[in-house]
């Protein structure tokens, strides 16, 4: 029974759903909900990035650029042009998808460091534009973003809501919304991974030449997954902007791109649950370490370094492997 459950395709999704909906039992003030909501949004972004990095084996150091574009598209359209949130999110995501496709075709021909450099440049260019178009984006000091609205119904972190007879404050409502979004993001990603496209992508990761020999149109699949991960980033950027209520060009900055890629590597490349864990750990650490003051940065670096030295595959895959070995030993002993 347990074994069959462990082999189910939707196992991870169910476990994640249980964790997400049990979590509120441990959250006791709106600040915790605040953090959890951000984690969910960032985790969904990283799940998208993982499709590109973990499955197709392509590095993107400019992903925050797409995230920032989505955030700013939403910010500008909803505040200056009076659009509703959903159309802004969707149109923004489509626009970013097209941009990703246009820049993706040529740069995905590059490999290794050259590909990293090219994506890095794309991220930088987007950040520079957001910084300098002061009339549109408010420049380096940022711009305010109105609350998320659907058909005149407003989801604000400061409102209060009634869901099936339960009284919810704005932070709790946002958390539930973000948790649902994360589940949908994971479900879509897992379906993509288990589809023929996913298999083609993994073959590209394994050996691009071999993949081409067996008839995989590698260029097409690579730009497809690049576009998909950019759309993930853009959509999550839009939600992030609504949730934060204020955005600065730092959301499209280099630091943020590096944070994303670190989450993927730390959590475990190619493991959807792993990268979510990576996002949670990296969002949580600065808050936990804040009490150590000057030592914060040193400890942060040390933790990352030690994890990479002793767990080069990432947090979750290493843990899973250790647990798997144990269980096998146990099973062997019994037989």
């Amino acid at each position, binding site marked *: 029974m347990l074994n069959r459950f462990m082999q189910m395709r939707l196992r991870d999704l169910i476990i994640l759903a249980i964790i997400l909906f049990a979590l509120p039992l441990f959250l006791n*003030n709106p*600040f915790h909900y605040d953090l959890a909501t951000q984690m969910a949004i960032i985790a969904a972004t990283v799940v998208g990035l993982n499709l590109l990095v973990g499955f197709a084996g392509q590095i993107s150091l400019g992903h925050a650029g797409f995230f920032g574009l989505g955030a700013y598209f939403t910010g500008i359209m909803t505040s200056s042009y009076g659009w509703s949130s959903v159309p802004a999110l969707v149109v923004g995501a489509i626009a970013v998808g097209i941009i990703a496709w246009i820049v993706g075709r040529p740069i995905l021909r590059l490999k290794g460091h050259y590909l990293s450099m090219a994506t890095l440049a794309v991220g930088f260019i987007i950040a520079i534009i957001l910084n300098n178009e002061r009339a549109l984006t408010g420049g380096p*000091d940022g711009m305010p973003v109105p609350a998320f609205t659907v058909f005149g119904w407003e989801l604000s*972190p400061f409102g209060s809501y009634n869901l099936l007879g339960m009284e919810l404050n704005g932070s709790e409502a946002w958390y539930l919304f973000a948790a649902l979004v994360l589940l949908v993001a994971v479900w879509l990603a897992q379906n993509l991974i288990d589809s023929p496209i996913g298999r083609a992508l993994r073959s590209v990761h394994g050996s691009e030449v071999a993949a081409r020999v067996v008839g995989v149109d590698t260029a097409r699949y690579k730009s497809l997954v690049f576009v998909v991960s950019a759309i993930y980033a853009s959509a999550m950027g839009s939600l992030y902007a609504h949730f934060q*209520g204020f955005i*600065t060009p730092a959301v499209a900055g280099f630091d943020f791109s590096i944070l994303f890629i670190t989450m993927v590597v730390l959590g475990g490349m190619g493991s959807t649950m792993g990268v979510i864990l990576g996002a949670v750990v990296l969002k949580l650490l600065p*808050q936990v370490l804040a009490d150590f003051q000057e030592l914060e940065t040193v400890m942060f670096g040390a933790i990352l370094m030690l994890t990479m030295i002793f767990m080069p595959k990432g947090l979750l895959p290493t843990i899973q492997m250790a647990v798997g070995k144990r269980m096998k030993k146990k099973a062997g002993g019994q037989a």
Partner: protein
Amino acid sequence: MLKTILRRTGQVAAIAAAGLVMSAQAAEPIKIGSFLSVTGPASFLGDPELKTLEMYVEKINEDGGVLGRPLELIHYDDVGNASNARNFASRLIRSDRVDIIVGGSTTGATMAAVPLVEQAKVPFISLAGAVVITNPVKKWVFKTPQTDRMAAERILTDMKDRGITRFGLISGTGGFGSSGRTQTLDVVEQMGMEVVADVTYSGSDTDMTAQLTNIRNTDGVEAVLNFGFGQGPAIVTRNYAQLGMELPFYQSHGVASDSFLELAGDAAEGVRLPASPLLVPDSLPDDDPQKQVVQDYKAEYEARWDSKVSTFGAYAYDGLMLAVQAIEAAGSTDKEAVREALENIQGYVGVTGVFNMSPEDHNGLEADSFRILEVQNGEWKLIN
């Protein structure tokens, strides 16, 4: 080794526990929250601000606290990042439940926290410069530094006094520079002056000769104004001297610190800028109401930290003192009462200027709280 660590931890825990018991016996502390850019690119703002807050909270507690209650400073480092600032503001308000917030080193960090502060109804005194923070007025948000608009007004008034009406503007593309540029262009129209050349540089540029040559070759330019902070303005100043430009040269208050003199060296000779009187405490006339406050702050800060005083720390000094004065006037830490008291503070003599708050003005300073200084023989000289 491990044993020593364990023993140390034990000792620390014991001391902490003793501290807890003691503070439980004493009156409940007044919690002052702060998020500052203590490290990262804006650390030259956050570092002196934090030192000032720590030092004066200690001092006030030694003198018996406020309303008979000690102050407790809870502070976080936002590393100059706006989304961190928002998270820490959220933590201060919702988890630490502070009574008032004094912080926000940069405009971005401040503005990111504003929606939260307004909704949670917590008085917030910002230490950042741009005019957007208090214009339009936000019910719960105050600030202590003069706005960049006032700096622009002060500089342009001084130019006009010297008979200059047409000048070249060079500004950084960072938050400070680009906001300053917008304000300058706005003030220029009102004062009937004209910006004949308008060029920018980015924070990481290492040579601004091209931009300056552009200004020099513009017809009818009578002076040059640079709005920016960090290393950029020092490089502009050096390039200016290298090009042998003879026009009067103005900098903004963004570089009003002694480290600018070190960075720019001889090239800074003759540069004028608006600044806090803190840079020239001893040249202030004796009847200047700020003289005593300024001299005391400088002496106390330098004695305690063994480093040069900075105008940015003074913003934190004024912020803390305004908070204390408001809590005393309100007679409690009731947030609405403190907010109202803050709004009604009149004639508080601070290091930055004399504050006269009102419901329409949450900054409370006038443009003439800036003094115009000129660099002469490698030192600041008070002009007016």
